[in-house]
């Protein structure tokens, strides 16, 4: 299998990359290559131009800023995996990253690439939905911030213009000692998840739920926040039974995907199970108790 012929560009600055994007027709942006390269090898995509971002050093950074983790679009998944800050302050993201492919793919795969490819079961977009991340894009008219809830425009399609480029993402932190859980169901380790769930949890000293975030990946075209479950849980005393009851709501997820891997009702069923497991894990980890 060989990629189809294309013209290759490797700009050194974001401005040059945006210039190329606005000028060229049928261009594709190459980040870590862990999704685009297989698609090229199999000729699922036939771009006339490839704009490689790997020379743009300014897009690779990871820092904490105003209570959030800020990552550049070309920051490797590996950098999140081995970051002490991510591990201690953004443990949901760390747990999710350990489910992204394998060491060999995380060494190359990027944060921005995963967000833009927007596979329905990809882990980084699921965490972005869970923490209400903000995606920063840049284009000929300058920068703009997109709340992650408005980022997916459709199946594997981010809501950005053809001449715009994702440059970074901001993951807001949850308070110290919050509970977290990321679980997924895949047929084999490292495979795309059929269904995943991400949970974040804050409880008061009596075990009453103060704040909760629950996101399901892999069931709909983009990760979906389970607002009804979150609403039902706030104010309740956390327990497995309470979580189980509330998660039944996941069976009603609208427009569940049906494909060769699983029918829609199976995905909805998995969503109830994965969400309960994620919430139980989050509860067990509150205050660092697990």
């Amino acid at each position, binding site marked *: 299998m060989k990629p189809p012929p294309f013209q290759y560009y490797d700009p050194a600055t974001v401005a040059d990359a945006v210039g190329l994007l606005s000028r060229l027709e049928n261009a594709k942006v190459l980040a870590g*290559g862990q999704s685009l390269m*297989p698609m090229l090898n199999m000729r699922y995509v036939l771009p006339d131009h490839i704009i490689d971002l790997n020379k743009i050093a300014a897009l690779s950074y990871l820092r904490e800023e105003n209570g959030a983790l800020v990552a550049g679009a070309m920051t490797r998944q*590996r950098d999140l995996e081995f970051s002490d800050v991510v591990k201690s302050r953004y443990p949901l993201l760390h747990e999710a990253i350990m489910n992204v492919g394998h060491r060999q793919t995380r060494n190359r795969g990027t944060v921005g690439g995963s967000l833009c490819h927007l596979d329905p079961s990809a882990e980084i977009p699921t965490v972005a939905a869970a923490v209400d991340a903000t995606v920063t894009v840049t284009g000929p008219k300058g920068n703009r911030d997109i709340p992650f809830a408005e980022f997916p425009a459709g199946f594997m399609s981010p809501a950005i213009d053809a001449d715009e480029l994702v440059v970074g993402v901001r993951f807001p932190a949850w308070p110290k000692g919050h509970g977290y859980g990321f679980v997924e169901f895949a047929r084999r380790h490292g495979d795309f998840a059929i269904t995943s769930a991400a949970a974040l949890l804050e409880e008061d000293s009596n075990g009453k739920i103060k704040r909760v975030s629950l996101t399901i990946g892999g069931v709909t075209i983009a990760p979906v926040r389970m607002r009804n479950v979150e609403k039902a849980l706030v104010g309740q005393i956390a327990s497995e039974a309470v979580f189980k009851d509330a998660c039944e709501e996941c069976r009603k997820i609208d427009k569940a995907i049906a494909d060769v891997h699983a029918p829609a009702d199976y995905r909805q069923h998995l969503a109830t199970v994965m969400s309960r497991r994620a919430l139980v894990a989050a509860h067990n980890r509150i205050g660092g108790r697990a």
Partner: protein
Amino acid sequence: MSKTRKISVTINGKRYDEEVEVRYTLADFMRQQLGLTGTHLGCEHGVCGACTILFDGLSARSCLMLAVQADGHEILTVEGIAPSPDKLHPLQEAFRDNHGLQCGFCTPGMLTTLLEFLRDNPDPTEQEVRIAISGNLCRCTGYQGIVDAALDAAQRLKPQKEAP
């Protein structure tokens, strides 16, 4: 803009200055243009792990990179693991002694993957080894021999204690 580009890449310590088609994958470039056929191509879409190389010391799928992206970088392939033509690396010796290979197709990727893994984690558990090679498919061994070889190699690679 041309369909080819001049690149300069160091593979197993040797520098290559080559003109390469921009759409060529790194794996095809090494195998077909340089004759370095030790790196194997199984699936060519990033699933089987046979083409794993070390790119600036980090494991990567060479079927998921373009050759032009290797310009100015250092690569290690299976051909560069042994210290000399008549001596195997301790990891290779451990594979030979533990039935870590049968047909040998997956072995180049297993070795490069484990070389990185054992460098970062010199004293792994069996579970950690299994996760480390989870991105490499083997259809012969059932993995047990490979896991044994990796654990054995970890012992062999430990600094030798002075005899009392």
